């Protein structure tokens, strides 16, 4: 009947934590698609800092929260880069899950999960896309 998804969610969360906490340290540090497009027309040095020319990226301003303790996916005060990136990733995954999961939990309708094969019943045709048009009137 009703299948629980908590076990699946727990495993998925673990995968996300490993990706953000460990694998993130092996991510490419080259400018991404947007940044590189905006750098067109400028020359950059080995650290991808603008050294000359004119390009849209020259107009970039500092972030409002550039002083945030987690700014740029690091933890201020943690000198070990690997640890700093990894821990910020772990915090980010847990925070995103808490904010997103909390929001979606509050928004969910008060009816049992799934209901495959059951008429949706009381919620006024919210699932009408599940029935092919023209059947069962």
């Amino acid at each position, binding site marked *: 009947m009703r299948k629980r998804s908590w076990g*699946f969610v727990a495993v998925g969360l673990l995968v996300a934590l490993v990706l953000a906490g460990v694998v993130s340290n092996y991510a490419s540090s080259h400018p991404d698609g*947007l940044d590189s*497009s905006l750098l067109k027309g400028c020359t950059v040095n080995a650290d991808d800092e603008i050294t000359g020319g004119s390009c849209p990226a020259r107009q970039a301003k500092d*972030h409002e929260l550039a002083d945030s303790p987690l700014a*740029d*996916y690091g933890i201020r005060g943690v000198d070990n880069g690997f640890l700093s990136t990894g821990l910020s*990733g772990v915090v980010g995954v847990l925070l995103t*899950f808490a904010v997103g999961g909390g929001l979606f939990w509050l*928004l*969910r309708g008060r009816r049992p999960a799934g209901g495959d094969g059951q008429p949706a019943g009381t919620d006024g045709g919210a699932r009408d896309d599940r029935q092919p048009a023209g059947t069962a009137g």
Partner: protein
Amino acid sequence: METLAMHISNGIINGPVAGVFAAVALAALTFCVLRGRRDLDDRLAPMAGLVAAFIFAVQMLNFPIFTAGVSGHLLGGALAALLVGPWVGALCVSVVLIVQALVFGDGGVAMLGLNITNMALLGTAAAYLLIAGLLRVLPRTPTGLAVTAFVSALVSVVVASQGFVVQYWLGGTTDLGGNLTGLAGTMAGVHLLIGIGEGLITATTVATVAKVRPDLVYALRALKPATAPAPVPAVGGAR
């Protein structure tokens, strides 16, 4: 100033245009909340939280593309649309973008409406339109699902990148000397390559979920194949 993700930084688009898109995004997200409520139940809500957390994690994983010196990462619109549907999916990507802007200094807070419009709204919408079309015509096999995921993810990234081009046309802070098509072409080309990565990640992830728990893939539940016979209700059954 190091930036990690494909998000618009402060100063790139002017204030008034950013403000307009903030209003657009707010209105669209309100609509997504209203529609998403119908989809959200005890099973989908934790899954949607997981999808948001997973997209946050994978967005940290910039991968190199073939062009030397350029990277890209998952945007997640197609992944979210496949797993939790278009309305909740757009909300998932938005949650990620909001957390990134407010906590990780990634993507200007003033630019949030622009980033949400491109990646959460345009990306997810383009993906779901394709998903809805492809899943109805392709065979209901693991390959059919993987192809759907790959194509919808790839296209959604290019569409999202062109959303930025439109925004730059409206409010870009550097005069391109009328060469907007140059920016459009550069963005499309780079994001086509990033889209291949997006497609591979999306197809792999969705195929894995479909193998373990097919009931947790929204698109498989909600979209019926066009050619398959309609499910026959049990005679004398519950209704």
